[in-house]
């Protein structure tokens, strides 16, 4: 039988079946965009704590102090209001704290008197409380140094490794692309194979004289193409909505293509193993989250400790995030060079495709 014709026929059949499951495919694509939204919401909690500013002074030093608060390493989103409004907002969970500048602030500062600033914190958890506790001294230091008050003897001098900081959300959405690749390609790959068992057509495959490998290749190419289209949609959202543009577009495309190939094959293997879409989908969702965080998605993985970093090497997402953060922002988030990450991805894509096709074709004839 002509291999090319068989491949095309299999792909056409898969396309027709996918066409009949448009809602499922659309929901899968929606999940991809949802992940972006979710990581963005998480990213929003990393900085700019909403804090009420109650300024009873309004003098020049108070204004300088407010400027120092605003410049304190993206710590505060100050919301000027009076004491009653602040109290109400604090107790209704709309603020994490309030800062009160007393009435005599400017006069006392001018006279060289130390002024206590009242800080009220809704200490819902230790981490959030620590963030606010650390941020206020940073503002106080900036205020003191700006006015060159006598007696300040030590300062921090910062030398950055990167020429500029990368925003937390731009960092997170790029790593979310790798997560998307895993979920979408994995689910579509799983659906392509599991459907054969769900509909009982696996028996026809087994009885057919055609090569099961070629038939599966046709199915997986369609699943991969659909996953690539959904990822392209996500990429467009990242570029147009988030304004995050890759500095190395070809590396981005190459990495995403490798991710699609890897995860389509892994998904197909899971689908063949579990024989039900209903079982494969939650498994992929469940695995995606731990893989995601243990892949340098939030910060370079090695900062989380050697054990977590070593485990991360088992996940293709680790290498994908390594290449994608470099391709978008020029960042190095893995100790390994970027070309090594890229080569590992390529190798994994090749191995996953070969093993899956071989295993599935054997499984189909048994």
């Amino acid at each position, binding site marked *: 039988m002509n291999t090319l014709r068989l491949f095309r026929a299999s792909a056409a059949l898969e396309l027709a079946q996918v066409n009949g499951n448009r*809602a*499922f495919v659309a*929901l899968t694509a929606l*999940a991809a965009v*949802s992940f972006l939204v*979710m990581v963005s*919401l998480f990213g929003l*909690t990393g*900085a700019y704590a909403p804090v009420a500013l109650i300024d009873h002074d309004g003098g020049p030093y108070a204004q300088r102090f407010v400027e120092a608060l605003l410049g304190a*390493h*993206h*710590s505060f989103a100050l919301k000027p209001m009076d004491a009653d409004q602040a109290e109400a907002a604090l107790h209704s*969970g709309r603020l994490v704290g309030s800062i009160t500048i007393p009435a005599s602030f400017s006069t006392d500062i001018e006279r*060289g008197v130390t002024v*206590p*600033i*009242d*800080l*009220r914190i809704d200490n*819902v*958890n230790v*981490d*959030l409380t*620590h*963030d606010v*506790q*650390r941020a206020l*001294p*940073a503002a*106080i230091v900036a205020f*003191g140094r700006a006015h060159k008050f*006598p007696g*300040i*003897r*030590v*300062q921090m*001098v*910062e*030398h*950055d*490794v*990167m020429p*500029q900081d990368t*925003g937390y959300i731009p960092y997170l959405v790029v790593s979310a692309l790798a997560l998307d690749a895993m979920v979408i390609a994995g689910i579509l790959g799983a659906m392509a194979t599991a459907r054969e068992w769900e509909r009982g057509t696996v028996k026809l495959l087994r009885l057919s004289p055609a090569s099961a490998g070629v038939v599966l290749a046709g199915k997986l190419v369609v699943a991969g193409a659909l996953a690539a289209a959904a990822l392209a949609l996500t990429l467009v959202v990242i570029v147009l909505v988030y304004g995050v543009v890759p500095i190395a577009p070809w590396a981005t495309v190459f990495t995403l293509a490798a991710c699609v190939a890897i995860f389509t094959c892994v998904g197909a293997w899971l689908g063949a193993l579990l024989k*039900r*879409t*209903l*079982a494969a*989908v939650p498994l992929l969702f*469940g*695995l995606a*989250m*731990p893989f*995601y*965080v243990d892949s340098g998605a939030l*910060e*370079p993985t090695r900062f989380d*400790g050697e054990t977590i970093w070593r485990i991360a090497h088992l996940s293709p997402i680790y290498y994908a995030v390594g290449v994608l953060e470099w391709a978008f922002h020029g*960042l*190095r988030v893995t100790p390994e060079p970027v070309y090594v990450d890229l080569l590992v991805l390529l190798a994994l894509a090749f191995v996953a495709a070969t093993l899956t096709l071989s295993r599935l074709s054997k499984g189909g004839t048994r």
Partner: protein
Amino acid sequence: MIRAIWGMARNDLAIWRRSPAALAAALFPALGMGVLVAVLTASVGQQPVALVVQSKGRFAERMARIIRADRDAYLLEDMTAAEAERAIGAQRVAAIIVVPEDFDQALASASAAVDVYLNNVDIDLADDIRRSVTRSVAEFDAPQLGLLGELHGPSTGVLLPNPYRVAVAEHDLRETNVSFLQYQVIPIIVLIIISIGLLGTALLTARDFERGTAKLMVLSPVGRLPLVVGRLLGGTLITFTLVAPLVAFGFLTQYIPYCAEESDGPLWVKLLLSGPCGWMLPVPPWSHGLALIALLAAVTLTTVGMGTLLGVALRDARLVTMSGLNASAYLFFLGGGFTTVAFLPDWIQVVSRFVPTRYAIDGLRQALFYPDLIGFGRDLTVLSGCALSSIVLASFALARAWRRA
């Protein structure tokens, strides 16, 4: 009638017992989120930092002591300059703090510096380190700007003059010390309830339409009401059966020997137990316990009703699974899972007011972590309203759908 209701509920329980895939669909994503929280805890708060002290001077040593003492901020390791350089290149540390050789001499002319070489890969990580080092540096000239000074300085009437001329009088609103992990475990519990209640009932309902068993139910002589009530009771029992042991386990976790922070057990044991140990819930007083049960019941009924509505609307197990997973994710994040609602833009805060999980998460945290039940009444009222309306709507929708099956 009661026999019919119980029969229907038992049947649903039996179907669930024989459906490992459905169980997995409900539990895997939520447990995945749980692992995510455990790993997140390692990522937030403390960063690995190298400290290089190049001076043997008295003041340099004092500066180093202040930095070393801030254990909440850094995972600090003393290194030589060469070791530190290799470590930052290999990403074993996120920053190098250098107390230079001429620190004591420069201090005499008020120009001493603490150098920070920072891997500013993203602002979250970089700002954490900047804030922490700045506070350590400030503490050198103004000891009250340290954590102890913030907590026990001006707020208790003790104000020491400092060269920055500003001090902090901190007042905490709550008498509590909830860790990030404990705080985030609560939304996971709610996510598990949503997943099981919503997905479980939706899958059972969709299954009836896929397999045509809905028609058999319509023909049953017991009438539709007992069957509808039985379905809702079944969904509720399934949710309780799966959630209750998990919550009970959370209360018992503190008795696992190696879960204590100061535990000196082998590293591999600690790693193995980090998952279960992370699932640690404080045992509340009995009044809070009752409030907790009422809240869990209201959330369960809400999700069971919503699941029934989803199943009636879609009538396809695969669509139900994907929609349920998407819906659970939105309910989780918009309700305050992994996020603090106050940080979100105003319009999202407005949206989150219409998300029942927000009230569930807030209420559970209030009942478990804080000494009073302020705001709990509102949370329970909203959730009870949601439960009532979703159950009533679900009953009508299910009865109507079966009639037309």
